[in-house]
Each structure stands twice: as structure tokens, then as C-alpha cells.
């Protein structure tokens, strides 16, 4: 009998959170959760982000429905719909965020759809000391303008699918704001290389701007290597936790449109590390 996360002790949750951070992701199988219980479980770890979009159930606004289903008018009932999703993370395009964890709980499965997770903390750890120092010297500017999560499709999301503006997130950042390419995880202090493709529009060493095409050509093959990846095909009852600072993820297209996941994003504030 698989342990049910609903029965986890505080110590179990602490171990789970540590494993999410250490490995970048954790999958638990054969879980049996209602939406309220899914939120309850996540809040044992931290504070959940709440949104008021059409994909957030009114009674559990912490949850976003992720699905390929459409309603009678042809509108997506969940975020992301059925297309391939480009590599991305929660908080994409933001220079600061606190919801470091995303959970996905499978309600309806599609056995042909794969979520690939790439660990850019493990990738950074493998670099030579010379390369590490070089990348530590780089700052990047993120911008969501023109970004599409659907790289091989004309689909651009249901109207009003996302608020991505600086004002919305109260970041008060300016067009020339930057963040380090190499970050330090706030909990375990390990470094990670935040190569957030598409959103990463500019790169600098001091005041010198780097050629962005060369920058991408250098990093892409170093980051997206098979050995840093894990792959998940969601089955009913699977719950995945991913650290959004340590990892980036993509999804193949959905072939079974009823596939449905519940998604939450939250911080680690309820864990005493």
C-alpha cells in the first residue's frame, strides 16, 4: 500500500520538501485527493498562489485546471490546452518570485503525453570551475513580450490567460533591470543556471552586452542534455512536485483531450528547514 500524502507527518513533509529541492522533482503515486485536499497538502509546505482566472475553480482558486478540453464554445477549460509546451517554469519572465514549488496532480491521464524536466542545478554543478566563474559574472534581463509557450502552433492561449506585466506582480522593475544568470537557491544554497529560454532577452557582463544569439548557442546544448532530464507520464493519482528554481520543464502535445491535471504553485514557508 502506497503511503498517502494526506497522512504525512510534519517530519514527512520536511523530508519531502528537502527531496524536492535536492532532486529538483518528486513523484508520488496512487494518491487519492479532492481539490480541497490537494490545496491542503500544498499548504502544509507553504503559501499557495491564488488567481481569479477562468481556469481557477471558485472554491479552490489555488488550483489551476490544466487540460486539453474545450467548452461548447471552443474555449479551453484549462490552461495550456493541448499543444506542445516549450520549456518554461512558474514565474516565467519575473525577476523575483517566491512560489518556488509547482505541484501537478493527475485526474485524467493521457499515456502519450510526456512532461520532461531538466535540472539546471545539476547542470551547473557539472561545469568546470572556469565556466562557473564565467557564468557567475553574467546578468540577464527577462521579458515576457513576444514569448509563446506554444512554439509550433499559432495558439496563443485563451484571451486573458496570463497577466505577465511588472505592474501585476508589483515588481516595480524597469526595462533595464537584471538578475544574475547564476542564482543561489534560498533553501539549500546550491547554485543553478537560470537559462529561461525565450524570456531571457539580454545578457551582460558588467555594462557590456553579450551577443544574445551566441549566448543561446553556447548554453542551449550545455543545459538541455539528456543526463539532466527526467520524464513523467502522468497516471491517475500521480502527484508531481517540482522546484521552479532548480528545474525547467516542457510538455509534448496531448492526444487524449480529457487529460486533466490540477496545478498549484507555492513557497516553502511552512517547512522548518
Amino acid at each position: 500500500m502506497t503511503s498517502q500524502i494526506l497522512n504525512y507527518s510534519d517530519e514527512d513533509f520536511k523530508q519531502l520538501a528537502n527531496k524536492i529541492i535536492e532532486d529538483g522533482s518528486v513523484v508520488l503515486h496512487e494518491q487519492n485527493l479532492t481539490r480541497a485536499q490537494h490545496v491542503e497538502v500544498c499548504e502544509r509546505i507553504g503559501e499557495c498562489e491564488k488567481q481569479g482566472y477562468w481556469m481557477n475553480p471558485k472554491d479552490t482558486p489555488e488550483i489551476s485546471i490544466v487540460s486539453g478540453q474545450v467548452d461548447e464554445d471552443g474555449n479551453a477549460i484549462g490552461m495550456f490546452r493541448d499543444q506542445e509546451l516549450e520549456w518554461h517554469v512558474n514565474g516565467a519572465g519575473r525577476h523575483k518570485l517566491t512560489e518556488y514549488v509547482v505541484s501537478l496532480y493527475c485526474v485524467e491521464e493521457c499515456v502519450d503525453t510526456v512532461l520532461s524536466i531538466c535540472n539546471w542545478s545539476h547542470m551547473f554543478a557539472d561545469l568546470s570551475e572556469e565556466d562557473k566563474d564565467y557564468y557567475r559574472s553574467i546578468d540577464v534581463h527577462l521579458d515576457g513580450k513576444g514569448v509563446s509557450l506554444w512554439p509550433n502552433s499559432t495558439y496563443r492561449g485563451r484571451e486573458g490567460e496570463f497577466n505577465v506585466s511588472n505592474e501585476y506582480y508589483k515588481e516595480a522593475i524597469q526595462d533595464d533591470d537584471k538578475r544574475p544568470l547564476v542564482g543561489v537557491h534560498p533553501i539549500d544554497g546550491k547554485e543553478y543556471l537560470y537559462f529561461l529560454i525565450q524570456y531571457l532577452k539580454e545578457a551582460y557582463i558588467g555594462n557590456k552586452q553579450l551577443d544574445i544569439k551566441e549566448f543561446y548557442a553556447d548554453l542551449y546544448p550545455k543545459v538541455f542534455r539528456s543526463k539532466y532530464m527526467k520524464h513523467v507520464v502522468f497516471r491517475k493519482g500521480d502527484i508531481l512536485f517540482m522546484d521552479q528554481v532548480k528545474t525547467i520543464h516542457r510538455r509534448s502535445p496531448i492526444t487524449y483531450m480529457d487529460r486533466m491535471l490540477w496545478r498549484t504553485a507555492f513557497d516553502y514557508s511552512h517547512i522548518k528547514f
Partner: protein
Amino acid sequence: MTTHILNFSDEQINELAKEVVSTGHVILHDQHGLTQQQYVEVCNRIGNCEYYNYFMNPKDHPEISLVSGQKDDEGKAIGVFGNTELQWHANGTARHKFDEICVTLYCVVECIDTVLSVCNQCDAFAGLSEADKKRFRTIDIQLDNKKDAIYKNTDEDGHDLPEKTINTGKEFYKEDVDRRPLVGKHPNDGREYLYFMVPYIVGAFENGERINHEALYEELWEKLFKSKYMIHHVFRVGDLLFMDQLHTIHRRSAVKNLDRLLWRCAFDYSNIDFT
């Protein structure tokens, strides 16, 4: 720095094979640049490779089968399996006895939307109740490839295979039995596994008496195909996967990039010291 399999010592090859048996599969990354000749040599360090003379076997390396969605100028598949979803299966299709219990797949051209799922039927058996274990040990199954059921979830009729297709059947394989135990014992580690060869089961016998194999099928499906017994892999160029064909069973989602190309070999463990 990933160690290249070409540089493996005999001891490392031995340890690799033991790990394949013990965990059901092993993936090595960044094995770039293997030639077909080197690939066969690597496999032959573990055991004797099966070889054929089908359309998907390179003439100078008949141990290799091309696995691809590509088609030639006449619209015929250049490799085995085409581009459609593949039902759960293992090497030794519909055979009651076979020696080539290790399969490798080496990625030459990738499709990042195609996933290979591997289910460990040894772990699944270990996870059964004692009552189920006892009952399943009394069951024999009968296998047959005549329904071509590996493609049963698609509307495609024959994956556009050239004229000379794949030989199957007990005459070709010179089989002297018509059934095998549902629960097998691995010849190398002695652990029991549940041999639920999904597309090929055409009959079942409990204590020698024929039973409704369709009911057995439904029961086994529920008990075997659990997420906790599965791993999933998306091949990237240079990945080399080893799978034990008794301890595991695998399926594949449809191929989107039709240029995807894997090289496949099947072989025994005859060069490995398991003592």
C-alpha cells in the same frame, strides 16, 4: 564527464549487465559517435546478438534493426514499427522460449515528443498479495502474433512494411511447446516476473484447464500497469538504453518527428559472469 561505453572494462560491462537485470533497465547518456560496427561490438561483449535479413537490417550489420518513422521514395518504411503508437510488448514477440533477453536502443536522431515507457513486471509481481502470487504461478499462457496486435490502438493496417515482412510462428522459431508459465523465473537472478505479454496472449490455462483469458487479461492489466512500476524515457541523440525483456515490458507513444532513428539489438547474457 560521462564514460563512453567503448572504454568500459570487462568488469564494467559485467556490472552493467548485472544492473540491467537487477533494475530492469539502464540508460547511458552522451554515447555519441558510435558506429554501427562499434554498437554491435558493444552488444557482443554482453552476449550473442540475434540477426536477421529483413528490410530493416543493414546488410553489413544484420544484428541491428533500424527503428524509424522514415519512409523511402516509394512510401515504404525503412525501419521497423513505423511511426504509430506501439502497444506494450517485449522482444521475443509471441515466442514461448527465447534467449535474447536484453534489448538495446541507441538514439541516432531524436524526437522529443516521443516517449518510451518501461514497466517492471518483476517489481509488479513482488508487489502482489501472496494469494495472487500463488494463483498466478499455476497459470500458463499461450502466445500468438497472428493478430499483429502491437499496433492495435491505431487505425493503421500494416505500417507500410515492404513485401518481406517479419517471420513469426512456431515453425519459424522451431518451438516445441505451445504455452509458457505466466510467472517466470529469470535465468540469471532467479527472481520471479509476471509475463503479461499484452498483445500476444490468445489463451490461458489454470492447473492445465483452459480459463477465460480475456478476464485474466483485464485482471493483469490492473495489477501490472501501475505508475509506480514505470519509468519513462525520451531519447536524445547519444542515449543508449538497455532493457531486460523478462523483467520489463515497454510501450511507445506515436512518433512526431518522422526522421527519428534508433538502432536496436537483441542479445543474450552469455558473456557475463553472474556468479
